Every structure is written in structure tokens, then in C-alpha cells.
């Protein structure tokens, strides 16, 4: 017994979060970081809420002078940006990071240090954003930052605060996207096939993939706009061949999926709460999963419905109208499935379920007005009116905030071990529901009566004072309702009733661990045999191998962090993944990233270069293989006891999947650049613009030829590695190094001898930026190759298998860099000669 206690204590010590300052800066475990994400997001929610109330005070009566037009512009910009970028998405990411490992039977998320980096970058992004108040240059161009309003000609440094703060937050979002996808695919408990995965995890998987595409496009767009502002490129300068509509296309290509990036996890929350309180499995599980998939896909095809008044051809608009109507089918399927689950079940009306019922009512209303605004003639009438404000608040507050508040009530006992107050919960729900409807329902009518949005006041003879006053009073009630819940959250932390492990009797795995959960989450990896594992725990269905592995890993390893890796599709055990412990590296990498952003903000490019260099150095320190860990894994004996590898390679390794995520992000960015090129090309009478001649193809062709021919050589080297042949491996990878090096040098020569500057025209800007993108992608790959080459030459033959993963990653990235380089080459050098 003593040794069992000792083992448990060692396991606990290994996973326990660091306490006290500065140790908290080094924490990488998902539980404290998930909590921090949620608390930080709730802080931004409070700030955003105060900004909204200030706006409502201004609009309470006509011709009010409480705020001036400039302050009002700043408030609606900061309110929208805060709620969209700093509250809703980060909160859901934090919830995902906290709950996911518990729910799918893992001990942590796939990349703990990346989680920590993402959190700090998010905090710093928010701070940069709000630092604008300190120097009185608050962003005022709207949360969508339309050009030309957001260009240097019309706004000063305020828009730089917006762009750079946002860029950091987007990077945080991307890290969470990769984290969520890889965790779900590789860390599911044995037996948790895709057909048994909790619906919340399904929603998050789809959202994680969406983030990789959508956030990257916005990140690319914000960088292009910052280039226009700081470096005088011409992407959005109509006088020099650029296009303001291009910004709208890029922004809304992100902006509409963004709505679903918030909404789908919210539906995932609903899909967890409803079966729990209906005490029966979700009706239409397969249909809900398909609805999530279809929504994820179709959400990328709706962006133009934000641009119906921008003068696009009717033909084009008709396709987007149809897509916008079709997404209602997918959403409707989910709504009917939840109603069917509740129907006749005699559900227990606890606070989380009340929020679900509120959600159903409000979201259906918001969805119906969404179908209305998808119809072009109707949209032309109500565009930029308060009808739109009402519509999207019904969707976002009804469809996202209500599930979030319900989720807080639902998982709070798990996080803290204590229940929220039922009485305060009822008051909070009632006030929030009433306040919300009082605030936003009159806005439909005001919109119909012609009140435009984003104006700081209105004339008395419009006779809208009554509606506005009700709306403002409602905003205070809504604020009070939300505040009550937050007060309850604080008070119940110490004074709430003890919750027990499963206060609601939920059906998923998080309810099988203690409340609050131990830092290692699962002492013994669960074996899943149904969609409701907490209701029907059974390992009878598992094969002997799985049972033996789970038994061997019960409370193991004790002295280092690790989790079980399973197959992405059928969740059979594949490997044991080492997970890093506390380290300051993510924090300092985030500080370096912020320094680079501040350098651009203050036009101190040396500071920016210093921040960039420091980020790269920190990343090198972060990623370099550590012999100490290799020795630890070799000596552990876990491989022999379980029959699983402790040096996973290829698709068994989370690092391989992470690299795939990285290449998806980089590929999306290249896609956004190519879209920008062809969009501007489409509307240019003359190409290349401004009298610039066709690009000289000879040097570029030689460069791309060298780059692409090095890919088969690297692939051959990889095959030799798998056969254990050291020298042919070195030869193959050396060919990649030479080919890549030559490409980088030739690209630099090409850029240095261009006879035009990027400021001349949009074409010139595109030519430079696309070439620089190809150069950066190849240079990164080359640096990666150099690092693995050095390792390859230094390690002993018997250590070759342990270096396999690095070589596979280098090869995977190299293939991507060459493909991207080829696409960019074909666009820049071949397409002008053909199209």
C-alpha cells in the first residue's frame, strides 16, 4: 500500500502545476492554461460589455451629447473586436483545452508548450490592442477594418494597434487550432472510434480545421494591409491598380467562417448538455456530425453575402444566396435533433438546460432573420441598418453566449469541485434572457424604420427615442444578468456546495474523474466501448493487447509526463508520447513575438528585427532534440512492457501531424496570396500594370527546377533511412540541402535585380510579396534541413531510428515548400504569358 501511495504521489508531483511567481509563467499543463484562457477571455468580455453599455447610453435618447462621433467610432470598433477576437473564440479555445483531454481520455493536449505560447501571445495581443488607449490612438475603423478607411491616408497609428494586436491574437488562434485537431486525432482513449466520439469533440475537430484556413487568410490580409500602411505597397490602393474589394473578400472569407468557428463549439456544448439532462443519448448522432461537417464546409462559401451591396454581378450573388440558404438545413438538423432528444424525456430543468432552452429560442430567431438577409433584395433594404445589428446579436449572443454561459454552469463543478448557486443562476438566466430580448428585439423595428448602424446619434423627428430607451434599459438588465453569473462564479469557488464527481450524471468521460480533476487527468486510460462511456463503462469489448497496455500504463510513467497515442480513425493504441514539463521558453518566445510587433507599430524596425531574431532563437532552443529525454525514454522500459514505441515516427507522431498543420496554415496563406494576385489580375486592363514588362523567366525557372528536383532526392534519402542505410540517407538529404540553398540564393538574386519597386503598382507589390513568400518558405525548409543534417552527421548509427522523426518532418516540409514554390512560380512567371 505504501508503494502505491508513493507511486501516486510521484505521479501527482510530476504533473502538478507550478505555483508562485515567476513559476506560473513556465506552466504548460492544459488545466491551468485552459483556466487562464477562460478567465482572461471573461475579463475581456466584461470590458467589451462596458463599452457596449456606454454606446447604449449614448443612443438612449436622440441628439445625445454623452459621447462624440469619434469616441463612438472607437467604442464600436473596440467592442466588436473585443467580443469577436478577445472573448468568444479564446474562451471556447480555453474550454476546449481544459475539457478535451478529460473528455477523450488523454492526460494533456498534444503540444503543451504551444498551448502556453498561444496563451501568452493572446494576452500580449490583447494588451497591444488596449495599449492604444494609453496614447489616445484608439482603433476606429470598425471591427472589419474596411479599406480605404483603414489605410494610412485616413487613419493613423490606431489602425496599426488594431492590426498588430489582432495578428498576435490570430497566431494564438492558429496554435489552438493545431492543438485541438492533433489532440483529437491522436490522443483519444482506446476504443473511442470516430463513431463514438463525443459531439463536443466532433464540433471542435471541425472548428480546429476551419481555424487553420480562416485565421490564416485574415492573418495574411492583415499583413498585406500593414505592408500597405508601413511599406507603401499597393494591394488596396485603387489609384495604383489595387482593390478595396479585395480586402472585403479576404476579410469576409475569414469573417463568415469566424461566426461558425464560434457557433459550432457552442452547438457542441449544447449537444453535451441536452443528453445529460434528458437522460438519454443524443437523437440523430450521425446526422448531427454530418450537419457539423456540412456547416464547416459551407461556412466558407458564404462570405459574399456580406458584400451584396458592393456592386458584384447578380450571377455571382445568386450562388452565395443559395449557399446562405442551404446552411440553414444543416443548422436546422441540429435544432431538430436537440428538440427530439428533449421531447418526452421529462428533462431536469437545471440552470445549464435553461441556457440551452434560451439558446434554442434565440438562435432560431437569429437564424430566421439570417435566412431573410441571405435574400439579395431584402438585404439591399436592411444592409447597414439596425436590423443587421439585431440579427447578428441574436445569432452571436443567442447562439454563442448562451451556450457559453450554459457551459460555464455545466462544467464549473468539474473545474472547481463546487456547484454554482441555483438561486443566483435562475436570476442570472432570467435577467440575461429578458435583458437580451429587450435590448435587441426593438432593433429589428428600428432597422425597418431606417436607423443606420454605426452612427453616434439620430434626429428626434425619426421618433425612435422610445425603442432606443427600451433597448438601453435592456442592455443594463443584460449586463446585470451576466454580472450575476460572474459574481456567482467567484463566490461559489469557496462557498458553493460540494459537487461530487458527476453532479449532473453526464454521459462523457470527464464525469468519471474527480472534481476538480487530478493534474494528470486520467490515472488509468479508459477503454471506450460506447458513445456514452460514463453511463455504460465497459472494457469487455477491448482486445487483450489493449487491456494489457492500459494495465501497464496505469499511473505510469510516474516521473515524466506522457500520454497514450492512438490511431486517428479507430483509436487503437499506437505509441507512448513524451510530453514536456514546465519551461519558460514559450513565455519568452511570446515576449519576442510581441517585441517584433511593437517594433513595426513604432516603426522601429531594428526592434522588430531583434524581436524576430529572438523568436527564431527561442524556437530553435524549443525544438532542438534533447539527449536527456532520449536517454530517459530508452531507460524507461515502457516500450518493452507495453509493446508500444516511445519514439513514434510518421503518422504515429504528434510532431508529424503538427507539421502537417503548419503546412496547412502556410498553404492557406499561399492560397490567399494567389487569390489576391488573380483577383487583381481579373480587374486590370493591362497586365503587368504600370508599364512593367513581363518577368524574366530564365533565372526563376532554373531556381524552381533545382528546388523541385531536390524533392525526389530527399524522398529517396528517406526511403534509405527506413532501410537503415546511413550514407545514402545523408546523400539524399544533402541533395535537398544543396538544391534548397541554390534556390534561396537565386531567389535573392532575382529580387535584387528587379527594375521596379513594390510601391509602383499593385502588380509590383504582388510580385515582390509572392516572391518573398516563396523565399521565406524555402529558407525555413533549408534551415530545417541544415539542422537535421548536423544531427545526422553527429549521431551514432544505433541512434538513427531516434532521428527518423526529424528527417521525416524535414522531408514533409520540404515537399510542401517545393509545391508552394512551384505554384507561386507558375503564377508569377507563366500565368502572365498565358492569361
Amino acid at each position, binding site marked *: 500500500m505504501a508503494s502505491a501511495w508513493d507511486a501516486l504521489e510521484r505521479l501527482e508531483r510530476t504533473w502538478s502545476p507550478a505555483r508562485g511567481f515567476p513559476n506560473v509563467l513556465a506552466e504548460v499543463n492544459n488545466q491551468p492554461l485552459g483556466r487562464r484562457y477562460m478567465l482572461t477571455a471573461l475579463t475581456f468580455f466584461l470590458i467589451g460589455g462596458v463599452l457596449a453599455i456606454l454606446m447604449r447610453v449614448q443612443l438612449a435618447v436622440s441628439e445625445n451629447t454623452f459621447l462624440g462621433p469619434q469616441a463612438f467610432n472607437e467604442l464600436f470598433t473596440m467592442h466588436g473586436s473585443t467580443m469577436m477576437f478577445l472573448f468568444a473564440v479564446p474562451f471556447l479555445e480555453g474550454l476546449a483545452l481544459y475539457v478535451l483531454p478529460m473528455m477523450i481520455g488523454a492526460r494533456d493536449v498534444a503540444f503543451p508548450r504551444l498551448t502556453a505560447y498561444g496563451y501568452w501571445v493572446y494576452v500580449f495581443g490583447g494588451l497591444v490592442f488596449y495599449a492604444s488607449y494609453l496614447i489616445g490612438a484608439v482603433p476606429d475603423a470598425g471591427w472589419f477594418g474596411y479599406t480605404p478607411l483603414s489605410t494610412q491616408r485616413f487613419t493613423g497609428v490606431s489602425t496599426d494597434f488594431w492590426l498588430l494586436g489582432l495578428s498576435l491574437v490570430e497566431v494564438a488562434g492558429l496554435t489552438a487550432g493545431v492543438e485541438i485537431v492533433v489532440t483529437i486525432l491522436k490522443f483519444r482513449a482506446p*476504443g473511442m*472510434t*470516430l*463513431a*463514438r466520439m463525443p459531439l463536443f469533440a466532433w464540433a471542435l475537430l471541425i472548428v480546429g480545421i476551419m481555424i487553420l484556413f480562416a485565421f490564416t487568410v485574415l492573418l495574411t490580409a492583415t499583413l498585406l494591409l500593414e505592408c500597405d500602411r508601413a511599406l507603401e505597397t499597393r494591394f488596396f490602393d485603387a489609384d495604383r491598380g489595387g482593390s478595396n474589394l479585395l480586402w472585403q473578400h479576404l476579410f469576409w472569407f475569414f469573417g463568415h467562417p469566424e461566426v461558425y468557428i464560434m457557433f459550432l463549439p457552442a452547438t457542441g456544448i449544447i449537444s453535451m448538455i441536452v443528453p445529460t439532462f434528458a437522460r438519454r443519448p443524443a437523437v440523430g448522432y*450521425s*446526422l448531427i*456530425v*454530418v450537419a457539423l*461537417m*456540412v456547416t464547416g*464546409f*459551407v461556412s*466558407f*462559401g458564404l462570405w*459574399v453575402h456580406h458584400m451584396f451591396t458592393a456592386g*458584384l*454581378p*447578380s*450571377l*455571382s450573388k*445568386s*450562388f*452565395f*444566396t*443559395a*449557399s446562405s*440558404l*442551404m446552411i440553414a*438545413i*444543416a443548422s436546422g438538423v441540429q435544432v431538430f435533433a436537440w428538440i427530439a432528444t428533449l421531447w418526452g424525456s421529462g428533462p431536469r430543468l437545471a440552470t445549464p438546460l435553461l441556457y440551452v432552452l434560451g439558446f434554442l429560442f434565440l438562435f432560431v430567431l437569429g437564424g430566421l432573420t439570417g435566412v431573410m438577409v441571405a435574400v439579395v433584395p431584402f438585404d439591399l433594404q436592411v444592409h447597414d441598418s439596425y436590423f443587421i445589428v439585431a440579427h447578428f446579436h441574436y445569432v452571436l449572443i443567442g447562439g454563442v453566449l448562451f451556450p457559453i454561459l450554459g457551459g460555464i454552469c455545466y462544467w464549473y463543478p468539474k473545474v472547481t469541485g463546487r456547484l454554482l448557486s441555483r438561486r443566483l443562476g435562475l436570476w442570472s438566466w432570467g435577467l440575461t434572457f429578458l435583458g437580451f430580448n429587450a435590448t435587441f428585439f426593438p432593433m429589428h423595428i428600428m432597422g425597418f424604420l431606417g436607423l443606420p448602424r454605426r452612427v453616434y446619434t439620430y434626429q428626434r423627428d425619426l421618433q425612435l427615442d422610445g425603442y432606443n430607451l427600451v433597448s438601453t434599459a435592456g442592455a443594463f438588465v443584460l449586463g446585470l444578468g451576466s454580472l450575476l453569473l460572474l459574481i456567482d462564479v467567484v463566490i461559489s469557488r469557496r462557498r458553493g456546495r460540494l459537487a461530487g464527481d458527476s453532479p449532473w450524471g453526464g454521459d462523457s468521460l470527464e464525469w468519471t474523474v474527480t472534481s476538480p480533476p487530478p493534474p494528470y487527468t486520467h490515472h488509468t486510460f479508459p477503454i471506450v*466501448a*460506447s*458513445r456514452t462511456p460514463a453511463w455504460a463503462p465497459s472494457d469487455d*469489448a477491448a*482486445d487483450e493487447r489493449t487491456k494489457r497496455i492500459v494495465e501497464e500504463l496505469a499511473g505510469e510513467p510516474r516521473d515524466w509526463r506522457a500520454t497514450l497515442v492512438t490511431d486517428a*480513425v*479507430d*483509436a*487503437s493504441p499506437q505509441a507512448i508520447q513524451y510530453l514536456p514539463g514546465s519551461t519558460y521558453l514559450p513565455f519568452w518566445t511570446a515576449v519576442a513575438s510581441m517585441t517584433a510587433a511593437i517594433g513595426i507599430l513604432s516603426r522601429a524596425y531594428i526592434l522588430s528585427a531583434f524581436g524576430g531574431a529572438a523568436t527564431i532563437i527561442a524556437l530553435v532552443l524549443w525544438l532542438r532534440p534533447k539527449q536527456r529525454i532520449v536517454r530517459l525514454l530508452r531507460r524507461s522500459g515502457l516500450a518493452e512492457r507495453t509493446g508500444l514505441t516511445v519514439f513514434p515516427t510518421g503518422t504515429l507522431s504528434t510532431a508529424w501531424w503538427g507539421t502537417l498543420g503548419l503546412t496547412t496554415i502556410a498553404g492557406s496563406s499561399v492560397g490567399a496570396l494567389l487569390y489576391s494576385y*488573380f483577383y487583381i489580375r*481579373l*480587374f486590370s486592363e493591362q497586365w503587368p500594370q504600370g508599364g512593367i514588362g513581363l518577368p524574366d523567366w530564365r533565372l526563376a525557372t532554373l531556381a524552381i527546377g533545382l528546388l523541385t528536383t531536390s524533392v525526389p532526392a530527399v524522398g529517396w534519402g528517406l526511403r534509405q533511412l527506413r532501410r537503415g542505410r546511413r550514407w545514402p540517407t545523408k546523400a539524399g538529404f544533402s541533395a535537398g540541402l544543396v538544391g534548397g540553398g541554390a534556390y534561396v540564393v537565386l531567389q535573392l538574386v532575382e529580387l535584387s535585380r528587379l527594375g521596379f519597386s513594390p510601391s509602383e503598382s499593385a502588380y509590383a507589390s504582388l510580385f515582390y510579396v509572392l516572391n518573398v513568400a516563396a523565399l521565406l518558405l524555402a529558407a525555413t525548409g533549408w534551415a530545417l534541413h541544415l539542422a537535421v543534417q548536423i544531427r545526422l552527421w553527429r549521431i551514432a548509427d544505433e541512434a538513427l531510428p531516434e532521428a527518423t522523426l526529424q528527417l521525416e518532418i524535414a522531408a514533409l516540409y520540404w515537399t510542401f515548400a517545393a509545391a508552394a514554390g512551384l505554384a507561386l512560380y507558375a503564377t508569377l512567371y507563366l500565368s502572365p504569358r498565358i492569361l
Partner: protein
Amino acid sequence: MTAHDRTGIEQRRLWFGLLGGGIAWTGQLIAASFISEWGCFSGLGDRHVGGLMMITWLLIGVSLAMAALAAVATVVAARLHARWRTDGGPGSVDSPYDSSEAFLAKAGVIASGLFLFIIVAQSIPIVFFLRGC
């Protein structure tokens, strides 16, 4: 052909069945968006053949091709599902109800079928209602 090869082919069919409809819809939307904007900007909207604009014919062509792709994906998913709903899929140890392969095949039938419907629905206005840019 070895059992391993057969499994590989079936896996590729499965993913095609699951994602083919969505990819076809994406292709139709992006192509239609570019064709409409480029056609209307370049003056192609003024040229008519058989009572319809040249652009409309192009859009019909793209839509038919993408509808065909989505239809093939639906059929592929349906055939896999018909087989796997009894045995759970290649190498599956789970019951057909819980096997990932059988589940994804079923999801493919519904998803690709729905995308086929969306493609057809999106094409109706250009053929029957919209007569100009």
C-alpha cells in the same frame, strides 16, 4: 493485389466518398464566382448563344461537372456503406454500429448527397431566372 493494397484503395474511396461532395461544391462556388466576375467585367455577358449568355453556359458546364463529381462521391460512399454496415469495414474489430469506417461511409452518403442537392439548387437561378449580369 494484396489485402493491404485493397485496404489502401478502400480507404481512399472512403475519404473521396466523405469529402468528394464538399470538394465539388467548393469547386463550383469558386469557379462560378470567378467566371461571373470575370465574364461580366470582360463583356462576355453581352454575348448570347441559344438565348442564354455565354457566361451562363460556362456556369452550367461547371455546375454539371461538379454535380457529377458529387454524385459519384455519393455513390461511392453508398456502396461502401452497403458493404460495411454488415461487417464494420476493413480490419474492424468494432461492431458495424461503432466502426469508424462504416460511420464515415454513412456520413459520406448524407454529406455528399446534401452537397449534390446544394449544387443543383445553386444552379437553378442561373438557368431559369437570371438573364443578365
